[in-house]
């Protein structure tokens, strides 16, 4: 195939680079050997590194202790989206199940609105996180079942439409602006509940099915953790809105029991990949998240049972539990993203290296 003159010039440039390299190589090999400087100074340039450098490259340290994986590019919008989307999805489910079982109408209405508001907030958060936000519609170019990001994008679009339709249609019906159109409202309601369930859980698959060790080691747990966290938040938001049915408290107790169990399993289940969950700031973030989502609200909710339902004391205790759960849930999402960042910088797991996670110079054997 013939190439243009401009390509010809660029092609010649590659040949020039090659010749230059050859020439320099020959001239350097003529240097006396004592001109080699020791390339192992004792301290590294801290500003350039956000990892613990090792003194050498070896089978024990990897390549100078440098990270093997890339750090997640996700910024603060993503954990907040996990939180908002999870709560909204669970809330849509509560509205649907509540309606099916004849729960309080006002509670159902609020649950629909929590879902709709969450549905409205989620897309902007995700779009803001894109490196090239103008192209957010490219998410809908294809559907790839093997990509949780693709499944999630389609889920979010469906959920947002359904949750908004469900809230608006029910409101219009209630105010008698529109006659009741059961097909539309019911389809929207059930659609929001079903996509909401995917929305509340897929984010766990999204982070779990990656190359980041702490995430993929816990791929079975994170979807459950995120779902429970979302459910807890949905119930808590409704309680803060003034709904004090004992049914909501029961769901809250169930969710906080599961949260407590998850917290305990994260704390006591140690493996090399989950090191960021146990040490350093990431470990403490996860512990605080665990306490605020699990034992603290659980204790408050159980305590509220000692007073008559809907009594001021009981309501107060449940609102305190709700605040703790919401804070815990937000920190939980942040803690997982934060742990993933720390995990990506540690080459120990992907390289199956022995010894401490962050190799330090003393423990590196000298060259053979």
């Amino acid at each position: 195939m013939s190439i243009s003159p401009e390509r010809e010039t660029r092609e010649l440039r590659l040949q020039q680079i090659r010749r230059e390299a050859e020439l320099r190589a020959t001239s350097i090999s003529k240097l006396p050997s004592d001109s080699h400087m020791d390339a192992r100074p004792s301290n590294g340039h801290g500003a350039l590194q956000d990892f613990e450098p090792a003194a050498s490259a070896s089978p024990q340290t990897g390549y100078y202790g440098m990270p093997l994986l890339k750090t997640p590019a996700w910024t603060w919008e993503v954990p907040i989206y996990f939180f908002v989307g999870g709560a909204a999805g669970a809330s849509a489910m509560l509205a649907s199940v509540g309606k099916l079982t004849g729960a309080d109408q006002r509670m159902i209405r609020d649950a629909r609105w929590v879902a709709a508001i969450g549905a409205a907030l989620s897309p902007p958060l995700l779009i803001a996180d894109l490196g090239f936000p103008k192209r957010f519609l490219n998410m809908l170019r294809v559907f790839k079942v093997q990509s949780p990001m693709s499944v999630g994008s389609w889920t979010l679009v469906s959920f947002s439409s359904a949750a908004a339709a469900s809230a608006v249609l029910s409101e219009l019906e209630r105010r008698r602006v529109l006659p009741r159109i059961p097909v539309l409202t019911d389809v929207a309601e059930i659609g929001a509940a079903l996509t909401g369930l995917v929305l509340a859980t897929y984010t766990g698959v999204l982070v779990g099915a990656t190359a980041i060790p702490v995430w993929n080691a816990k791929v079975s747990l994170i979807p459950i953790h995120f779902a429970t966290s979302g459910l807890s938040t949905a119930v808590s938001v409704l309680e803060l809105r003034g709904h004090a049915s004992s049914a909501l408290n029961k769901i809250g107790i169930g969710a906080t029991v599961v949260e407590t169990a998850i917290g305990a399993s994260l704390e006591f289940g140690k493996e090399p990949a989950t090191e960021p969950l146990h040490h350093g700031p990431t470990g403490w973030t996860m512990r605080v998240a665990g306490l605020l989502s699990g034992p603290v609200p659980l204790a408050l909710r159980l305590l509220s049972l000692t007073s008559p339902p809907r009594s001021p004391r009981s309501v107060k205790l449940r609102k305190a539990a709700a605040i703790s759960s919401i804070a815990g849930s937000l920190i939980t999402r942040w803690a997982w993203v934060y742990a993933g960042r720390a995990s990506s910088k540690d080459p120990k797991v992907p390289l199956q290296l022995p010894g401490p996670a962050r190799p330090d110079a003393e423990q590196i054997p000298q060259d053979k």
Partner: protein
Amino acid sequence: MSVTAFLTDSTLCIGCKACEVACKEWNQVPADGFDFRALSYDNTGSLGHSTWRHVKFVENGAVPGFGGNASEVFSWGFSSDVCKHCANAGCLEACPTGAIVRTEFGGVYIQPDVCNGCGYCVVCCPFGVVERRPEDGRAFKCTFCYDRQKEGLEPACATACPTESIKFGEIEHLRDTARERVRDLEEKGFDDVNLYDPTDTSVGGIHAFFIVRGDPKTYNLPPKPEVPTTYLKKGWMSAGIAAAAMVAGAFLAFTGSSDR
């Protein structure tokens, strides 16, 4: 079109970085800084959004005579790293926009006019190759010189390599070449030569394999890279269980309470 591959033979590499320079010039990749890391002579660190070829500098013990070394100085091992163009590519599977495609040459290519910078490929690459370029927002990596290959030319790095440490060709032919080279080196008395080509993992083999002396871990080459889609089954199963449990829990709580 035949499937093509890179064979990077680090036993021939002199660390001249002509591949890095040629790659940058041909692909017009922005500068990646001149950061002396005080770890070795390596000033590029790792592959990234603006480093598509990266020469690793590894110090070994003194091997008199090898590579022209005097007996009193340690020897250098150099290896030019590149995107592995996995047979089962994590980035390609993860890409929600379809920006990442498999080319007719078997390479993995990010279409810059489609990528919206979601960053999911970054966390799904088991080799830590793909990265989002902050000032641009999109993800970038080695294109396998798709434009050059389309015109029947070798990739820029292979063209510029003065020692033919970077070989380019039809994949199976190159695998044979690699095995032959390892045998050859072993016959010459090098007992620590390894061919890095993880075919027995879920990535199903790579289209850029490496001949290195010593343990590939030294060069940050993971012993068991896995394509993250292998975790999907577990993840979705959990998601299903969680969703079912949420519905069941809510149903029980509502029906089991007189006060709903």
